[in-house]
């Protein structure tokens, strides 16, 4: 039978495995969009690990910032870069 601590270690290990896989996929992915979204997933899983470590304050901050605001900031700048690219292509054509 597993005691509480071993169970917690197993849960953290499983979350950590998911995080490392998501991080590797995010870094190696060819598509920028999936890269950005997977790095948000890493942050979301990290907030679960923080909760398991007895740090609810940190978990709240990480969940709100890491997965919501950081992802949005990335997406905004991706879309801005696309706008700039279109502008340059238009300028070159005319």
């Amino acid at each position, binding site marked *: 039978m597993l005691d509480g601590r071993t169970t917690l270690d197993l849960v953290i290990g499983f979350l950590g495995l998911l995080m490392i896989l998501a991080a590797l996929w995010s870094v190696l992915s060819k598509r920028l969009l999936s890269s950005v979204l997977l790095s948000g997933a890493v942050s979301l899983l990290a907030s679960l690990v923080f909760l398991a470590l007895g740090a*609810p*304050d940190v*978990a*709240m*901050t990480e969940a*709100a*910032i890491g997965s*919501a*605001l950081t992802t*949005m*900031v990335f997406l*905004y*700048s991706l*879309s*801005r870069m696309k*706008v*700039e690219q*279109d*502008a*340059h292509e*238009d*300028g070159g054509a005319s």
Partner: protein
Amino acid sequence: MMKKVLLLAAIALLAFALWPFVRDVGLAEPGELATAYLERGPAELGTANVVTSIVVSYRGFDTLGEVTVLFTATAGVGGLLARRKSGHGRKKAAERGATDASEILKTASRLLSPLLVLFGVYIFLHGHLTPGGGFQGGVIIATAVLIGLLADPEAGLAHGVMHLVEGLSGFAYVALGAVGLWFTGVQAGFLDPRFLPLGELGRLASAGAIPIIYSLVGLKVGAELTGILDAMKEDAE
């Protein structure tokens, strides 16, 4: 090829340098400083959340520095992405083929945003009692603004109000810290919240000035993160 070898060597070196952290040192007791904070924090400052007592008061000067870093980074983002005067290369959202948000999305965001702001205020007012505080509450307020921006990108933010909130809360934060310096007597320090009565542990109006200071931090963080989002958002004009 050479680059790859160098890269792997750098990663291996970093892994070697970080190895001492990975070894479990098997601590059973918190350090002396942590023990002192845990034992004296609730009694001295009347906070149920020890992390809050450290962030706002014991290490309050650090927090002031970090808020300053946040302000500097926000100013940097705003300066780098300053709107261009002429509309060179800039098209309206509709011309780029962007579709308008649906009526359901707009209505839901109008309904949700005020509730989220209220939730953020709740979080930072109860920072000394429950998990959460100024930073989390500020982030939730910024998320509320973000939902509004996502549903209606053309809507302009009230920049004047935002700058006013940011400046006034920053000023009041430093001013309250200085009040703590003057009013608490012999062992006073900067950001000492004990110039207000400590009250009963667990009440909303307790812990001296900590709820007020944390609320100011929350307003400032919320205004600054909203500023970052507004600057990063592709401008509509």
